[in-house]
């Protein structure tokens, strides 16, 4: 007997969703559940996990308050700096560039992604290190300038590393923007600056929010750039986790921090999305 059409559609949907669902369950839900279990356990004397039920790990969270604070500060600041740099680039690509070369220019934004961030960050170590820019400065008489292992270098690395992730969603939303709306604005007497703030910016907010959310989430887990360009002096949650799992082998505490970070991210994101909806007046924020 043939299946009823909507029953058949349900089965098709289930079949299409199943691989992704299974993947998420095995590689996201299960590990997360394991992490939650670990977070309530205790560290074995020589490291690792030992079954228990205790809130001691969570009670110990204040010992990593600095790492949480650094992470929760640098993530939005880094995302904001990325935005400041990315928006004009995306604007140029989507609105001002010659359409003939647009594809090439957009590809140029993406190309760095083909090389690992590690290698690109190492390149910055050499540019900022004594043999790089400080060497050039030395030639014009400015001696012993130190750029590497400074907070500025970390911010530079973050902006550099995450720029494409910010440019692309903004580019897409600007590219979708109906040019006649800009003409209509000018026609109604708005100077270019008013048009930008009255029409262009609000209509590209979904892209902006997507970019900010993407970069913020990834920055919350960042540890490579501060390690390489900050000289290990800037301590993020990511660094705390690496040390807890690979150095002191304190799995329960590491798990408690990771679980807490996930909770914080969910809260921060949902608040951010709510604000974005309010501002842009639609539920068009692409991530949620």
């Amino acid at each position: 007997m043939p299946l009823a059409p909507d029953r058949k559609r349900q089965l098709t949907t289930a079949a299409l969703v199943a691989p992704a669902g299974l993947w998420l369950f095995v590689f996201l839900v299960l590990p997360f559940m394991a992490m939650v279990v670990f977070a309530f356990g205790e560290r074995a004397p020589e490291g690792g996990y030992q079954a228990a039920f205790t809130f001691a790990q969570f009670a110990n969270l204040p010992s990593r308050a600095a790492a949480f604070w650094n992470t929760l500060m640098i993530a939005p600041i880094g995302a904001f700096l990325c935005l400041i740099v990315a928006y004009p680039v995306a604007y140029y690509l989507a609105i001002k560039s010659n359409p003939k070369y647009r594809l090439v220019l957009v590809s140029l934004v993406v190309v760095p992604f083909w090389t690992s961030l590690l290698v690109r960050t190492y390149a910055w170590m050499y540019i900022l290190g004594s043999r790089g820019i400080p060497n050039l400065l030395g030639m014009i008489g400015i001696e012993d300038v130190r750029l590497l292992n400074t907070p500025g270098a970390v911010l530079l690395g973050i902006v550099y590393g995450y720029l494409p992730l910010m440019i692309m969603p903004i580019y897409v939303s600007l590219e979708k923007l109906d040019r006649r709306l800009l003409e209509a604005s000018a026609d109604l007497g708005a100077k270019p600056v008013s048009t930008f703030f009255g029409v262009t910016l609000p209509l590209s907010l979904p892209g902006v929010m997507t970019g900010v959310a993407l970069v913020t989430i990834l920055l919350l887990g960042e540890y490579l750039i501060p390690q390489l360009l900050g000289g290990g002096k800037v301590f993020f949650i990511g660094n705390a986790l690496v040390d807890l799992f690979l150095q002191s082998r304190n799995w329960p505490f590491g798990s408690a921090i990771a679980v807490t970070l996930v909770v914080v991210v969910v809260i921060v994101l949902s608040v951010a999305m709510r604000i974005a909806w309010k501002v842009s007046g639609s539920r068009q924020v692409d991530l949620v």
Partner: protein
Amino acid sequence: MTAASANDIEFRSVTKRYGSVTAVTDINLTVPKGAFVALLGPSGCGKTTCLRMIGGFEQPSEGTVLIDGREMNGVPPYRRAVNMVFQHYALFPHFDVEQNVAYGLKQARPKLASSEISARARQALEMVRLGGFEKRRIHEMSGGQQQRVALARAIVNKPSVLLLDEPLAALDKKLRTAMQIELQTLQRELGITFVLVTHDQEEALSMSDMVCVMNAGRIVQMAKPQDVYDKPADLFVADFVGKTNRIMATVEADGATLRLSNGTALPAGSGLKPGVATVALRPEAIELARQAGRDGGVLAGTVTHRIFLGSTAEYQISVDGLGDFLVTADRRSVQESDLVEPGERVVLTFDPGKVHVFPA
């Protein structure tokens, strides 16, 4: 210019090129104050380019565009006292209806009081009969309503010229007809110049008091609607504006006899240049009668199709020696019986004075 110009808009030898493509060539055009001018032509004829040069979205490559007697070359759109109703309206999706209409008012410097902005926006909405829709969002409005919002938004700044780029193209036929009347009324109420761009000859003829027919980047004819229809300047206008039957013919050496390609001779007006010519004849200039029991008539043929339109009917007739003709017959003009059936033999008569002859 000291004295106010009598013309709102003037094109002086305007040419616009995009790279190697010439969009319009040597346009000379004057639009008197308070006129309703239609720029009519097929797509790609340059009519929209002309409109955009008035709006300031394009700058002429050569020549000058004047608005109210002042040269406008290089003046950006936001410094021109003209407003445009865009094709597909280009309403701001992130604003509600009132915010859309108020947008132009908010750009005024010095700033207007918000109470004044609101009052004027509402007034404009009343003019397009959208009172009560102020807080609606754009996507909640129908096509016709969006059209009115676009109108209100464009007139709220009290421009001296309103530009309309295919304003009715997205509406269905009934709504289009209603809007045609409304636009005319609005123009009379506002007393400002309207420049309409359209490819729809019916729209152009029905609303404007001056039609400017364009083809291939040039103005072909500029005249009152009925003159464009009755006295087309060339075969293109005859073809583009209204329907027409084309007949190959020869003007005989006397310059007063027209010989159609099937050999029929007609008296023609005097002073025609002898030689090959094309004759244009409107479908409604032809009278139709059953051939049975009759002699005379200029041409004879067989009805192949009939399209019944209510008060009139359109016939496709295969005329002996000349091919297919289109004839629009007022039902009363067809004798004996209301409708002629396909397959019947008919004779076609017409007043030779209504024939337009265009030398090849």
